[in-house]
């Protein structure tokens, strides 16, 4: 039996996977600077890796690679094209928009008596769907002349140390504007008094960004949900 080594024991528990979320965060925060812990983790990764051979392979959905490809396209593009621009010009996007219109029509029908659509100001609705899917993930409802409400229709799994960020862009704007960070599964009220009034077809999207939001003020991560404003008469 080897001598009791707390660093090695911590590393083995981390690699084996038995640490709590808090324990995992602690190890992950120490790894960049703690060479002894890093070496111990590398040792255990190497020791246990052959066990992955016991797992049955599972064929990914055909759409998964397309999603990954969309995610990597903007980062290394020589023209520094933003995720937004890349996505704007992609076929998948326009398909999603078509799907969104379809889904929006069906969701509107479900919300006739919520009282949110008072006739005073033009009212809009946006259904946000995954770029490669048709299942709605969030709904945006205008709630008064200068505010809107983002409502989740389900939960969104967000990786550790990442955040969801909400954006909008009208057709004649140069770039999307951040409407703030979004908690998965939580509604968000957004004041629009700093922005021009909503227009038909205005785009909304939610991207996956670093924990404190995009460092550039523009979307940098993959687009998780996207949709266009539909004017309700």
């Amino acid at each position, binding site marked *: 039996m*080897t001598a009791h080594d707390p660093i090695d024991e911590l590393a083995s528990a981390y690699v084996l*996977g038995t640490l*709590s979320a808090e324990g995992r965060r602690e190890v992950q925060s120490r790894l960049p600077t703690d060479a002894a812990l890093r070496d111990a983790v590398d040792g255990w990764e190497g020791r246990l890796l*052959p066990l992955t051979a016991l797992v049955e392979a599972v064929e990914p959905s055909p759409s*998964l690679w397309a999603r990954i490809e969309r995610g*990597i396209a903007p980062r290394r593009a020589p023209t520094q094209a933003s995720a937004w621009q890349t996505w704007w010009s992609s076929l998948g996007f326009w398909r999603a928009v078509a799907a969104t219109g379809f889904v929006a029509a069906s969701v509107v029908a479900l919300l006739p008596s919520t009282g949110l659509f008072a006739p005073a100001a033009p009212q809009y609705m946006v259904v946000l769907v995954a770029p490669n899917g048709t299942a709605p993930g969030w709904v945006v409802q205008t709630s008064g002349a200068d505010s809107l409400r983002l409502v989740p229709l389900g939960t969104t799994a967000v*990786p550790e140390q990442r955040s969801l960020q909400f954006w909008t862009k009208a057709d004649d704007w140069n770039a999307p504007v951040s409407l703030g960070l979004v908690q998965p599964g939580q509604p968000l009220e957004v004041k629009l008094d700093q922005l021009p009034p909503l227009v038909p077809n205005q785009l909304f999207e939610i991207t996956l960004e670093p924990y404190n939001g995009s460092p550039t003020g523009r979307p940098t991560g*993959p687009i998780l949900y996207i949709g266009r404003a539909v004017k309700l008469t």
Partner: protein
Amino acid sequence: MPQPDPDAFDHDAALAACARGDRAALRRLYEHEGRYLLGVALRIVRDRATAEDVLHDAFMNIWTRADTFDARRGAGRGWMYGIVRHRALDAVRSGARTVSADEDRLDALQAEDPPAAPDMAEAFALRADLGRLDDCLARLDTPKRNCVLFAYLDGCTHGEIAERLGAPLGSVKAWIRRGLASLRECLA
């Protein structure tokens, strides 16, 4: 190895190409490893859509961090599996699939010495192609082997393993500790 011939594919070279911005290289890695990596993620998160999200995020990570991959610290293939496993584990731990808040208190109530559990069934079929690890696992007694495999392959917490094996939490923790110590010694 699950791959028909792991030596035929040069993961390190493909990662180096990713670091230079070669998207086709990431695609080759995906085509070569995607189904195995998805299998690994799915066993841990136990939900198809979540597993695909894990694989997606892991490939984003592989792409953006390819230039930090250091072949001196281990082979590229293992580096990728590590990224996928840890993303999957982060997803289930932070999502609190099963939170045993009282685990530590329960633990204190358990006897330190685990029972021998001689009749415990093998939960996993081992395969001879695990190399030396197979011999070392074979030397562990069944409870220790089951614990290590439930944790590593299925992403089980101590509490979940205790439930699956019908064993006290303290025993599970001791089996894991001793099992890992034996593996370490055997593989040294």
